[in-house]
């Protein structure tokens, strides 16, 4: 419309004109809103032809029926493909493991984390109701490691292995909760009562992970002073505090690597490093 307007003003007064088509004044009229409404109404339901939204009910049934039939055929085909695929796939071991897997190296998880949306552990010292859900979450996890549950042919004591495990790879290393220390027990409410809570760190489970040990030449400088050539299978964990919190938490602990194929768990207790009532744990 802008250009049309410019034609009006630009043209001399004697012959200035905006084109108004006779198409509008005779013959075909521009649709009014009322016309549109009538059309819409007719489209929604046309009593003459008995059509609803442009089709008779029978027509609708045919079309919808045809479509559903088509979709079901297609879905059925896909379902058949899936069935074949699941029938082929191994239900006990993931198809892609080790180097072929996207996982590659295990990540580090921790407990307690009752709320999946945050890693923050926040409670008021002495106020049991503010951390009871944390306790429950730790408890639910640690009960698997009751000593009486870790007996049988599937279990193996790995505490003295200092080299790469080569035999009995299908056996799980026994984890003794005693290594968590005296404060990290249920009776002590895992240190929450004292404002020095236990946070369980664990290496994620991965099928067929083959850790590579550092040698004297390859060890990164950041862990050089805690690393020893005699025990290369010790996995070092470094904990860095959040800059936003006044306390810089830095801890170094570790896991014993040869135990990896089984369910591995170690716990580091940053007690003493966390003097505050609130502990903020971030992981990465």
């Amino acid at each position: 419309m802008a250009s049309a307007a410019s034609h009006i003003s630009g043209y001399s007064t004697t012959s200035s004109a905006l084109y108004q088509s006779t198409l509008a004044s005779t013959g075909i009229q521009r649709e009014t809103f009322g016309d549109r409404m009538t059309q819409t109404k007719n489209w929604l339901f046309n009593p003459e032809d008995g059509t609803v939204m442009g089709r008779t009910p029978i027509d609708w049934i045919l079309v919808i029926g045809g479509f559903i039939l088509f979709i079901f055929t297609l879905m059925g085909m896909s379902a058949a493909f899936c069935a074949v695929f699941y029938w082929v796939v191994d239900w006990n071991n993931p198809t892609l493991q080790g180097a072929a897997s996207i996982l590659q190296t295990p990540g580090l998880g921790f407990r307690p984390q009752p709320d999946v949306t945050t890693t923050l552990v926040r409670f008021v010292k002495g106020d049991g109701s503010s951390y009871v859900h944390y306790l429950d979450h730790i408890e639910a996890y640690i009960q698997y490691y009751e000593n009486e549950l870790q007996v049988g042919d599937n279990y193996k004591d790995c505490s003295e292995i200092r080299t790469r495990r080569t035999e009995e790879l299908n056996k799980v290393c026994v984890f003794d909760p005693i290594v968590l220390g005296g404060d990290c027990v249920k009776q002590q409410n895992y240190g929450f009562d004292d404002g020095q809570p236990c946070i369980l760190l664990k290496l994620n489970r991965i099928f067929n992970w083959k850790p590579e040990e550092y040698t004297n030449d390859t060890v990164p400088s950041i862990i050089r002073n805690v690393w020893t050539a005699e025990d290369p299978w010790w996995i070092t964990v470094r904990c860095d505090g959040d800059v936003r919190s006044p306390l810089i938490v830095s801890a170094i602990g570790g896991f014993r690597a040869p135990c990896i194929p089984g369910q591995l768990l170690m716990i580091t207790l940053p007690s003493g490093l966390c003097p505050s009532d609130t502990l903020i744990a971030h992981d990465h």
Partner: protein
Amino acid sequence: MAELGEGMERRKKMSIRQSEIQFKKLDELKGELEMDEHQIPLQELFQRLELANPENGLTNEQAAEFLIKYGYNELTPPKTTPEWVKFLKTMFTGFSLLLWLGAGLCYIAYGISLLEVEGGEKDNLWLGIVLMSVVIITSVFTYYQESKSSSIMESFKNLVPQHAVVVRGGEILNINAREVVKGDVVKVKFGDSIPADIRIIQCHGFKVDNSSLTGESEPQSRLPEFTHPNPLETKNLAFFSTSAVEGTATGVVILTGDNSVMGRIAGLASGLEAGETPIAKEISHFIHLITGVAVFLGVSFGVVAFALGYTWIKAIVFFIGIIVANVPEGLLATVTVCLTLTAKRMAKKNCLVKNLEAVETLGSTSTICSDKTGTLTQNRMTVAHMWFNNEIYEADTTEDQSANMFARSSKTPRGLSLCPIRPLKKCNGDASEVALLKCAETTVGNISALQKENPKLVEIPFNSANKYQVSIHKTSDPKDDFLLMVMKGAPERILERCRTYLKRGEEYEINSRFLDDFDKAYLDLGGRGERVLGFADLKLKKAMYPESYPFNADDPNFPLMGLRFLGLMSMIDPPRAAVPDAVAKCRSAGIKVIMVTGDHPITAHAIAKGVGIITPNCYTVEEVATLRGIAVEDVNPDEARAIVVQGEKLKNYSPEDLDQVLRHHYEIVFARTSPQQKLIIVEGCQRTGAIVAVTGDGVNDSPALKQADIGVAMGIAGSDVSKQAADMILLDDNFASIVMGVEEGRLIFDNLKKSIAYTLTSNIPEISPFLIYITMSVPLPLGVVTILFIDLGTDMYPAISLAYESSELDIMKRRPRNAKTDKLVNQRLISIAYGMIGMFQALAGFFIYIVIMAENGFWACDLLNIRERWDSKAVNSLADSYGQEWTYYQRKRLEQTCHTAFFISIVVVQWADLIISKTRRLSLFTHGMKNWVLNSAIVFETVMAAAIAYLPFMSQLNVQYVRPIYWLYPMLYCAFLWMADEMRRYILRMHPQGFVERETYY
């Protein structure tokens, strides 16, 4: 969006109100020229013009006063639209608007997500930016394509004469033409442009070339006498910017500048607003459909999301996300490129398209209003027939006149070839003389030699009172004892001066039988719309008239009676050779060809018959009456399928009358039409629902060219004005190119359908992952980045390659599409693209998603409702179905692998889609894979997909390596899809009009 619509409605209403004020003015322009300056006696005119003494002209004071009063004698250009406004217009119309809307929604979604998530969801931001870039780049491209055409008024300016010779205060002055005022007495001689509309006071052999104004090919003689109430037909007016061809004249200026006849046409042409092109209408219809689908999906899944317990903010973000996912990002560019490609192809075939959208318009055209002169005809007079020895001989009228089949053997009287009295070098003077000369040249031979051997002694030039031309020649044979006087002119005038006639070399007295034969021949030739000239000669005995005799042309002192009649020659501006064929093709393509000309009805009718606009067994009312020997009134109008309407009659027609004529006659010729009437005829056709193409070359055609859905101008013969007003220019002036244009237009319409069907298909595999993600809370199967890779990457070239697809059936044998029912994108196209092919693609994608997830450890059933944990950065050890634990980044890598594989599966299934889209009805086996652009497109998209998946730096864009075997799974679906569609098309061919065709043929 409702608000947006209301706003536009309001703006429209406002502009309509504005226009009503101006409406009267243009109506005035469109009305017939009403003036009486040519009718009233000269004295009265002088009084009205305050011209005291026509000898001395206006006084200088008067001139100065009038100049202030009436303004300069020039065409006022309309204020041109600034370039940036034009640019913004290309940027904010049709498709672009949809993408802008999408981009806006993306920013809103990003804004909302800022409230929810720290840093917001960047995907939406990027998507918004990409959408905006697409719009801007495409707009720049379109703007660049179209910027070549400039304003119409510019070309009118070139017509305006520079200088004028006026008489003012008794002095003859040479002044700038723009200073000429009403009442000025101007002097014009041959070669000048007429400086304003003038009424002739006196003249001498004055002829003007009115072809640009009326379409008459031959120069028109001008006289001081008033001969016709119609200003365009009366002999005593000469018009602004036409040119004087012969003679001199003195006239008084009656109209200047914008008020002149030419000024009014200019005003009309530039005042007309070109309407929306058919393809623009189709695209807005498509946008309505797409928006409808998008909003429907968005609202329903937004509600579902809310019902599933998402927060309302999340629900709104989903709602926006679904709408945006429906926007076909690449389609704007695809359509633009497809149209450009066709425009380029047409340009190669001498059909220059100025406005991209006009490429398709010819294909939709249902009526062609063609000008006669220069478009259908060669625009040069040619001898068509001769009558001598009581026989009509046909002359060759083809463009090169190579086939000289005309009866040379029969002794052509010498006079016929001598008669062209002017020497050849003045050939460019009079069209009919050129015609005669050319004819003589081909029949007799070397005319210039002949003329040299027979030198002319004296000549009486043609004048409209005598209506003949005489010259006396010395003969080449010195033994001849006579001089040869030859005469040509209006046959009846020639005949009345003849005593004898020549037949097969013998001279006979004119008797009543000869007179009957003559009348018959004269009527016959005249009835063919040809201009007939009579020829006669007389031997002047040297004894009485020696070479030294003082012949006096002004007061003839030699006999002009008792001549010997030689014969008749008739001339016509013959049709171009390719035209009849082209008209026939148009007709078989269901296109009505109407002739609209300024020329005489008889000539128009004859040419119409010659080119097949009026077919042999189609008669007008008058012809039926003559055939049956009954009165015109008694003829049943239904029997006459053809009609010749004269401008005079048309003037009194109401729009309804015109509609009647247009509706009830198949073969129509409009003759003697004024530029305004041409415009009215075009409007009439449009009123009856036709999509109208207008061809023309003259200034007088420009309003009609502008009003037409597509104006086609002639590149060689066409005036600049007509070229500017047109949307398309035929560089070789060949009407047959229009047929090619129609074919290309129809083809691109079909191919755009295919392109859109192909492009839309991938919308389903793009949207459905998001819908599944919302409703089933699984990890997102396909990401925004990969969607953009499809829409703006792999899909683009294949979609464009469909523009190169050859036509399935003979598209020139079917009727033009019905603009109301045959839509570019209809519900059937959407249901096939979305409901069938899209479903295949989506399922192929989900299958590979399930496979990858399961191979990495997540079984499909365990993925349900995993979304919150999956997408939480806090969860660092999410267990899969095998007990493996995944950190956030590992999960995201897995998810991106799925995205990449999903993307690849879409690309793979698009192979089948592309092959399916090649044909709408035929089997691939009959149609073949001959489109090598398309074949290369398949290779291209595959290579591109591989590059995206495997180039190392692509992981920056959230794409991951996928195992080569994952390419194989979707191929299953690819094969099934192709087979399914071959089957659909088989059923469609086997059962025409059946259920499958009704529901799936787009």
